[in-house]
């Protein structure tokens, strides 16, 4: 759209910034300017490239090509420390503070004030810390241990730390994720104050209402590309969502309509303090139910709770009509529930073990006799799965660490296929694998359904959710904000439920 703001005040200018990871183009020739003293919001779906862009600015990643100008000078920081020293500070969701040390010491961590003999000048450091805290007009005790502070105050410490280094640009990545309403107000007051002092803020958030409350301009990224940079005031939430979604859904999803049969899983009023609030839904044999929502909306936590990984604070789970008490994955599996986790390398596979060992792992008790594994059966299962999943491996004894991402994911799939469960919980089943392998995985999901299973699928890729699900649950802040059927779901509808401001909520069944 328009790029009319190139009026020379750009403190940070992106020109054709491109970042390529193996197999993925994370940023594709992104160009836009951030003006001095503005609050510049950065929005986009999960995986649009926001985080990658920020990590390049702060030196966590290095760009593949293009250029970035900071105050008119080309920059190419090699690490966050270098960026910080030059005046670009970032505050991430996971705060980088040392809990056992005081506020004052954390503020000056890495650049302690020293006296002429090289010892730390505690008096001066405390004075300076107090000045910064006073400057921000917040109530934080500088001698308190950071570990004793709440998230909001920790954030203030991070901001003070950035200011102590004379940060010109302050990047905030989802700063309100863990804040209460009142704390958000305080944060916004600080942001406005910093802006009045000429500090430039880059603000990333999934919460579009916040974008409208605090930002001057907003840049939309989608699939690694720059879509638009506009004055926030000229836009509506619907405009923003349209720009974020953009693309048309391509028909790459081999969705099949199956006869939906008996209920296999029902969840009633599931609660986990601060994470899940009164979750209700049911899953039927032959059905794929997709769970959409932003990162941190409680999707993964819901799967974990059902699978017995995190304790519940309330609610009931029914499997095939019977109320069950699932204390561990062991219990879940015995009830016919399988979880294919988000991170295949750290959660799905034992990389040191072979294809055979990984595929057999959940089934060993079924194919053993008085504790001894029946190797014939194990090999039989493995060869069946390797064929069915089309796993490319030089031998069954190959350690899984040497397989490609897609093949690793197929091993994870194979191991649960072999276990023959009734309910499959998929968490990001196709993350980080190429399109060809993705489609194969969709076909395998269909095969599971044909075999009489039911699938609950969490995915950050909306097209995947829309393309494969019979029913879609949308989550936001630990609640189900809407249930859509395959027929009446579209990207904008889902996004509204997942991120929309208060006035857009209300379409739940």
């Amino acid at each position, binding site marked *: 759209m328009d790029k009319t703001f190139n009026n020379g005040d750009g403190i940070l200018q992106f020109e054709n910034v491109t970042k390529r990871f193996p197999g993925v183009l994370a940023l594709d020739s992104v160009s836009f300017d951030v003006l001095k003293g503005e609050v510049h919001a950065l929005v986009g779906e999960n995986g649009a490239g926001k985080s990658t862009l920020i990590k390049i600015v702060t030196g966590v990643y290095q760009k593949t090509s293009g250029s970035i100008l900071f105050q008119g000078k080309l920059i190419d920081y090699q690490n966050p420390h270098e960026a910080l020293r030059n005046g670009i500070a970032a505050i991430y969701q996971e705060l980088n503070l040392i809990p056992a040390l005081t506020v004052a010491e954390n503020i000056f961590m890495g650049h302690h004030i020293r006296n002429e003999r090289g010892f730390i000048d505690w008096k001066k450091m405390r004075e300076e810390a107090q000045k910064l805290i006073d400057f921000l007009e917040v109530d934080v005790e500088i001698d308190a241990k950071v570990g004793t502070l709440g998230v909001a105050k920790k954030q203030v410490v991070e901001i003070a730390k950035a200011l102590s280094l004379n940060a010109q640009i302050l990047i905030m990545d989802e700063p309100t994720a863990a804040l209460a309403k009142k704390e958000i107000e305080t944060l916004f007051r600080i942001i406005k104050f910093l802006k009045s002092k000429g500090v430039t803020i880059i603000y990333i958030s999934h919460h579009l209402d916040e974008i409208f409350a605090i930002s001057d301009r907003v840049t939309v990224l989608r699939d690694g590309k720059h879509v638009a940079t506009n004055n926030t005031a000229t836009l509506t939430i619907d405009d923003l969502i349209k720009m974020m979604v953009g693309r048309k859904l391509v028909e790459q999803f081999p969705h099949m309509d199956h006869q939906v049969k008996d209920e296999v899983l029902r969840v009633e009023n599931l609660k986990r303090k601060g994470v899940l609030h009164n979750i209700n839904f049911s899953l039927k044999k032959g059905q794929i139910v997709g769970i959409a929502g932003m990162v941190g909306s409680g999707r993964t936590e819901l799967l974990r709770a059902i699978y017995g990984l995190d304790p519940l604070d309330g609610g009931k789970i029914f499997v095939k009509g019977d109320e069950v008490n699932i204390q561990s*994955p062991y219990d879940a599996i015995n009830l016919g529930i399988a979880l294919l986790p988000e991170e295949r390398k750290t*959660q799905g596979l*034992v990389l040191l073990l072979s294809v055979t060992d990984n595929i057999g792992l959940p089934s*060993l008790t079924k194919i053993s006799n008085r504790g001894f594994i029946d190797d014939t059966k194990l090999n039989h299962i493995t060869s069946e799965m390797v064929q069915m999943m089309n796993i490319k491996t030089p031998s069954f004894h190959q350690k899984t660490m*040497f397989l490609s991402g897609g093949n690793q994911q197929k091993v994870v799939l194979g191991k649960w296929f072999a276990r023959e469960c009734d309910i499959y919980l998929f968490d990001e089943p196709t993350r980080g694998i190429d399109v060809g392998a993705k489609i194969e995985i969709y076909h395998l999901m269909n095969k599971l359904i044909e075999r009489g299973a039911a699938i609950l699928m969490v995915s950050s890729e909306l097209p995947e959710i829309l393309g494969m699900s019979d029913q879609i649950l949308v989550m936001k802040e630990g609640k189900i904000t809407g249930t859509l059927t395959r027929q009446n779901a579209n990207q904008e509808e889902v996004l509204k439920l997942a991120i929309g401001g208060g006035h857009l909520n209300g379409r739940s069944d």
Partner: protein
Amino acid sequence: MDALTEDKNQGLVERFFIFWDKIGILLVFIVVCVIFGILNPVFFNPLNIINVIRQVSIIGVMAVGMTLVILLGLIDLSVGSIVAFAGIVAAGFQVKWGGSFFLSLVIPLLVGAGIGFFNGYVSTKGGIHPFIVTLGSMSIFRGATLLIAQGKPISGMSPAFRFIGAGMIGPIPFPVILFLGCVIIFGIMLRRTVFGRYIYAIGGNQEAALLSGIMVDRVKILTYTILGTLSGLSALILTSRLNSGELVAGQGYELDVIASVVIGGTSMMGGEGGVYGTLIGALLIGVISNGLNLLGVQPYWQMMVKGTIIILAVLMDRMKRRFRTV
């Protein structure tokens, strides 16, 4: 065919480490034996060879159990104290408390199992690092040994009991049979049973193992219990051989036990290795002591050599890992 090409593209260095992974330590063992044999032909005398194996049996039995614990990525420092405590209990039942021969065999094994269970239970359920828990047990049971014995060793075992440590079956000492028996039994256990596979899975990736429905805590507790029991067995061998329950028995054994496992190629990170490597590791330590003794080298040197070998073994393991992750 990514996987195929990746496999073929390995450079010389990587090939070396893969080769090393398979038989490296065996090669070192053979070379060391040949050198000692050339320097002093007595080394290859069958009596000497049997003597070496007998000497390492006590450490070796424990090292088999320690292999399982280290495969899980865990550690146990209390094995030496278990030996002393179970040993004094064995001697007590033999000499003082008028226990039967049967009780003097079974109770020390149960005592070892109990301490192992304690280590496993407290570290998993209490969420305390096993280094700390077993450091505590190490002190507790050394103290308990002194307490029970009231500061004096308990001597004078029955001939039947003495057979465990000093008896021979044909030309082979009974402890050697116990040691090799443990290696074979646990070798088969690791390779062929569900429990064995679970140990590798947990050591390789605890979270993936948990998500696969393995009761991780239970496997860990059972493994510590096995090590405790095997330490009890070592206590029987030692007490029988010395004909006495000694107060300082087993002191410092944990180092030799852990060294045998590590030199044998089992990774301290868990998930890789096995008892056959440990067999070689234990023998290598024994051979070096024996060989240097035969050459008349001061024992102080032996300690230094042993320490150096441990560090080299771990260094090789690290290098192996580094070259593999590319």
